[in-house]
């Protein structure tokens, strides 16, 4: 990108941008704003679903309706795994921002192992809800909350898998490192949104001291 290729730029005062970088990370990148937009949308969905949960809870005499609260074991285990996944996630993110190819390959793969681990535990979570989606409104909203979050887990896992494969096979260029950074950014949201959902599903269904 030599400025010599634009002789016109000196004669009649133009703003020559040919020397600028061809990708940048974080809020510099339109991708970051796109991801943030997704997060805003999905965060709203989660917030409204949680509000619906409490709306139904408020209008019900018993809660959970004719069911035992969900067993704590698998959900809590998954929460621990998710918090643990923040480590490889952050390592992959900073590796991508250093354009460090071997480290991205390593940490993205480790993050992926975590992702598959949650999906496995997630199956057990559904089994330990102690209620069916069609038993009553309580069952419906709990399944929906868990289902919504699982959808995010699945899509992000596919996303991470594709990126990871791409980093081993190519073709690669700088922008793919931005993709990794954005993918990790989004992963923070998946984990961050899990915490309130976990509290609602597992603790919202237990009697509160009044």
């Amino acid at each position, binding site marked *: 990108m030599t400025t010599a290729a634009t002789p016109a730029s000196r004669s009649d005062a133009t703003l020559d941008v040919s020397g*600028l970088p*061809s990708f940048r990370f974080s809020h510099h990148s339109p991708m970051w704003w796109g991801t943030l*937009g997704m997060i805003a949308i999905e965060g709203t969905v989660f917030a*409204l679903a949680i509000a619906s949960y409490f709306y139904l809870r408020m209008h019900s005499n018993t809660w959970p309706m004719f069911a035992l609260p969900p067993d704590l074991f698998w959900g809590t285990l998954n929460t621990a795994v998710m918090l643990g996944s923040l480590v490889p996630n952050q390592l992959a993110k900073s590796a991508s921002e250093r354009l460090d190819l071997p480290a991205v390959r390593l940490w993205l793969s480790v993050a992926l192992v975590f992702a598959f681990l949650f999906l496995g535990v997630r199956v057990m979570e559904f089994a330990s809800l102690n209620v069916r989606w069609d038993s009553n409104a309580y069952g419906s909203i709990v399944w*929906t909350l868990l289902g919504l979050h699982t959808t995010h887990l699945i899509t992000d896992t596919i996303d991470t898998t594709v990126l990871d494969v791409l980093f081993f096979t190519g073709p690669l260029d700088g922008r793919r490192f931005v993709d990794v950074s954005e993918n990790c950014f989004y992963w923070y949201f998946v984990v961050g949104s899990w915490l309130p959902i976990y509290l609602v599903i597992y603790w919202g269904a237990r009697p509160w001291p009044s």
Partner: protein
Amino acid sequence: MTHATLEASMAADRVRMKDGPPAGSREARALDVTWDDPPGLLGWFCAINHKTIAKRFIVTTLGFFAAGGLIAAVMRMQLSRPENTLVGPDMYNQLFTMHGTTMMFLFAVPVMQAVAIYLVPLMVGSRTVAFPRMNAFAYWIFLFGGLMLYAAFFVNSGPDAGWFAYVPLAGPDYSPGKRVDFWAQMITFTELSGLIEAIVIIATVFKMRAPGMTLNRMPLLVWSNLVTSFMVLFAMPAVMLASTALILDRLVGTHFYNPAEGGDPLLWQHLFWFFGHPEVYLIFIPGLGFLSSVIPTFSRRPIYGYTAMVLSLVATGFLAFGLWVHHMFATNLPELGKAFFTAMSMLIAIPSALQIFCWIATMWTGRLNLKTPMLFVLAFFFILVLGGLTGLMLGAVPLDLQVHDTYFVVAHLHYVLIGGAVFPLFGAFYYWYPKIKGRMMGEALGKASFWLMFIGFNAAFFPMHWLGLHGMPRRVYTYQAGMGWDGMNLLSTLGAFTFAAGVFLSLVNAVASARRGAVAGADPWGAGTLEWSIASPPPPCNFHAIPTVHGRDPLWQPAPGGAPARVSGLAVNVREVLVTSVIDALPDHRMTSPNPSPWPFLTALATTVLFIGSIFTPWAVVWAAIPATIATILWFWPKHKDNSEDLALEKAP
């Protein structure tokens, strides 16, 4: 030499040529080739140029407007005299549901987004939108979703529970069959499209503005689209969640809205109106943007009170979310809550009044030029004042209870929607038509169309106030003779047909002017914003040289001596764009923008199969997810050609 390195060396050669030189030069022609959509039928499905997509989007939404209008005509014919038998009650239920649904979900919001997708990049000085393939995808799913609804209607599966589909009426017990399921999935489709477009618009506005176009210099239309897009992000998820819960209730036996099993029908109303009220502002706020574009141009002076205008746009966006409960005054809510929402409903009049004040000040201190676009805009004032007044009346709980579910409400909502959106939209069409087509629309036909629409509109909807106050309920397919409602109903029907004739005249005008209109030139109205600095119609790349901006009305405030007037140094044979900083629009980096691709179209098709299938069996979600996932992966998988372009232009931060 491997294939990849060969490609890379070729690409390196191609990217050596840089832009900047004036239109007509070798570089300018090369840019046009680079940014054009691919030719041929296959190319048609691969198109991603934002202007191509926007034009399709506009035509599609106007098609739905016509369909919704035809349905309205049938309804008005049915109601023109008492005990009419043109359509029966079952058909009438489908008609008003299809009319409301079409107008709100398939016309009013999407048409505003479609216009934004055309104009925003031109107004901010960008070669394209931030995510062009996403943009194309959003169009395709919108089209398929809308077609699906009409296909259902024509096989007698049209939804019939109202455009708000209140449960339990819309639930599995009272609405068996597939009618409401089609409705619910159409909602998901159009809202998905709307959400994607919102993200596209936000990212374009934030990151793709020409250098120097600080937030403080951004055209008000762009501001209004930005505010609208943010509202979409927080409003539309509510209706998606609501309609997903509805279809789950109907399809897999969940109980969200079933009181017998602990559900609650009012949950539907809360979720629906949490979206439905801001929805009105999603239509109205872009309309305000049109006014703020047309009025300064035809008053020949910059807008009065720019900062106040921006602040009131933002305030309107916020307040719009505090209002949904006023649609539920007739339900059993706490009194204090109702009082709060009454106050909120009144409060939102303040920013609107402020805007109106600024427009009047602009016209007052300018030199008014009464061309057709301006007439449509002036009609806004008259109609909206009336609609706003009846709105204030409805915002008061006692009166709302009195006229609830009567034609008074139908009158009010059409005054607001048509006055706030349709008239400004038509003004916008007359205003920007020359930019899109390169030719002017006829003035005489335009004025005739305007007067027919204006008179027809008032004749159609003013009598409905009277009918409502005299007790005529809404959503009835007929009424008995001797109620005293006959004359006003006939007048209303005649008015509706006059309005339709006016719309038709504009259509004739647009079609005729496309070939025979006077050649427009770049800036036929003498306007000040960037889209008027380029040829009409704009070249595929929008700007052969990206401008730099030195004021709020760049064409009225050219670069001061010595300051650069344009950008140079972007590739000519590769789709390269300039990314700038969010607040000050300082150059940040260069970025390659995606090339045309069939995958957005194919992914939309796969998504449609998934959604239509899910109307019939939940397993469709599982099986159809496979092709949809494959299509998405192929969409994102970089091609070697794109990769070598990227590598050739690459420069690490």
